[in-house]
């Protein structure tokens, strides 16, 4: 494995994580709608069928529940499937397989089998895809013991978290964000790591910003804006929603004494609420009440580009909310 870093887009990092996994382990297979000849609707699997053949990279009919079930069958009989769900809005179409089968299968059998299935779900707004094609949904399924849930906010995380997910002996739901595919950054082809680790992307002393997916990039931009306002923000890419890295997050909060979470989901049931609740339950002393930047609770994601832009948290909005809790004036 090449440990040197190379510049790569988030999209390419996804593809390379799959390619390296397919290369390393001959039982790894990739299935989903249009993943083979078409290389994926978002072009995340271009070239893989040519390289690994049709037995290992194959197109499915449109039947999400059915083909996630097929992946489960493959997994418990010796394969290691990666399944692409084209839009995370289609996860509910595979609802039974995702909620009742994958997470529970090993448990119900009394530990007789492993279930090494990775479901890649492509989520997120900003693409003007409208109400039924823009969800992220990383917390919808996070209340399910038996499942691991991961996300990636940078090209490096796209590679390493996905690689780690695929290597798990347990089912993992991995969220990508379609608004990140074009983002470039350095990527080291790391070996699979531990699950449940958050990553401090920017150390800082004044406030802890925890973010996921596209919001990671916006939080980083917010941190740059905040620097101009004299606020030194620590930015953490959440990465694993289940298990969640409370240690890294709360250690940071203890240091900065300010906490703000940023996600592209509504607040009720969000991972941000769980982080804030955990800080409260551990009695961590803060210098100001924590805050959660989320989607509005009284709106769905609209098609209208004007409105979509208005409701997805921007770097500037994040910076303003941080300023409000750390008690300095934002610099616009």
């Amino acid at each position, binding site marked *: 494995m090449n440990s040197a870093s190379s510049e790569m887009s988030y999209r390419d990092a996804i593809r390379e994580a799959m390619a390296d996994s397919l290369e390393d382990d001959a039982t790894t297979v990739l299935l989903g709608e249009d993943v083979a000849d078409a290389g994926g609707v978002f072009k995340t699997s271009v070239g893989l069928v040519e390289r690994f053949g049709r037995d290992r990279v194959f197109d499915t009919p449109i039947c999400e529940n059915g083909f996630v079930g097929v992946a489960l069958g493959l997994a418990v009989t010796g394969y290691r499937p990666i399944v692409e769900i084209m839009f995370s809005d289609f996860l509910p179409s595979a609802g039974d397989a995702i909620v009742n089968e994958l997470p529970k299968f090993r448990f119900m059998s009394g530990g007789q089998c492993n279930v090494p299935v990775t479901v890649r779900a492509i989520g997120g707004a900003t693409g*003007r895809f409208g109400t039924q094609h823009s969800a992220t949904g990383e917390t919808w399924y996070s209340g399910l013991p038996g499942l691991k849930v991961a996300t990636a906010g940078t090209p490096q995380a796209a590679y390493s978290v996905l690689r780690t997910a695929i290597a798990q002996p347990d089912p993992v739901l991995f969220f990508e964000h379609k608004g990140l595919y074009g983002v470039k950054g350095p990527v080291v082809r790391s070996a699979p790591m531990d699950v449940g680790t958050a990553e401090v992307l920017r150390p800082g002393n004044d406030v802890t910003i925890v973010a996921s997916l596209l919001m990671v990039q916006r939080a980083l931009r917010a941190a740059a804006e905040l620097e101009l306002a004299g606020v030194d923000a620590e930015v953490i890419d959440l990465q694993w929603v289940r298990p969640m890295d409370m240690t890294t997050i709360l250690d940071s909060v203890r240091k900065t004494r300010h906490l703000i979470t940023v996600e592209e989901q509504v607040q009720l049931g969000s991972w941000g609420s769980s982080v804030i609740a955990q800080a409260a339950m551990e009695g961590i002393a803060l210098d100001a009440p924590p805050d959660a930047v989320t989607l509005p609770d*009284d709106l769905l994601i609209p098609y209208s580009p004007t409105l979509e832009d208005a409701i997805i948290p921007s770097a500037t909005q994040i910076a303003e909310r941080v300023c409000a809790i750390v008690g300095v004036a934002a610099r616009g």
Partner: protein
Amino acid sequence: MSVKEGRVHVTPSAVDRRGWFERILAIRFFEEKVQELFMDGLVEGTTHLCQGQEAISVGSTAALSDDDYMTITYRGHGHALARGMPPEAAFGELMGRTIGCCHGVGGSMHLTDFSRGLIGSFAIIGAGLSVAVGAALSAQRRGDGRVALAYCGDGATNIGTFHEALNMAAVWHAPVVFIVENNLYAEYTPLQVTTAVTDLAQRGVANGIRSRIVDGQDVDAVYEAVLEAVAHARGDEGPSLLEMKTYRFRGHSRTDPAKYRSAGELEKWLERDPVTLLERRLRDEGVLSDDEAHEIRVRVQKEIDDAAATAAASPPPTLDAARAFVYASRELR
């Protein structure tokens, strides 16, 4: 069979069929305009055009009464226009403007228009079929003689909920007509790669539904088949499934160059362009003169261009307006 009075359409008149020609042209020009608007950045996101399949929209909606129900898909511009949606309402929706049929919050995949019985436009594969069954059950319970028409693609016949809808329709004898537009591809993948049968009408039979294969390029054939199925449903004789063999001339969506086509395939189907077929037939039959055809083309093109301009002049919706669409009750606004 007790067909409700005044409901059965007769052989379409020359006037009707000239109207069909106008409508099929309007759809074709609309779709072509959408491509332009995309280039100009006035339509964003994605959009699924229906060039090549317009005969189905035109022929099937012509067989309906005004108060019948329809559920359509993300590839629904043609159905909405055929049903009478003003092009500025459709364009407006694609541009995210208040003039849009859903005030710009829906977008290209959601051309819903309750005033025309178009009760839903679905971006999730197969989702509209059971909704149409529900609407048909409404009509059945009221005994008001309405029927529901539900459209889907060939790829949609592989998702479970398609079969669920068919079975429920049959068991409950719902006045619904399912139209499967078999254009041979689901996104970039050819039918035979994902689908166990070639004639999808077979799947109606397995759910106890009378099923037929129809030439989807021929407006007259579509009209005749749908008229018959609708009369059947209205007469309390139960649901039908019509598999329309067709083809889309463009890629699946905006970004698709359609490289997956076999050599000569597109050309073969272009010979059966539904617009040309109808125009030629109407001319051959003397229903349409060369001059009339020319006049119609020019007029319809202008209507489409004007409608696009009107839509572009409409403002985007406000957040407050959008908020009011989420819940009907006061409490949560």
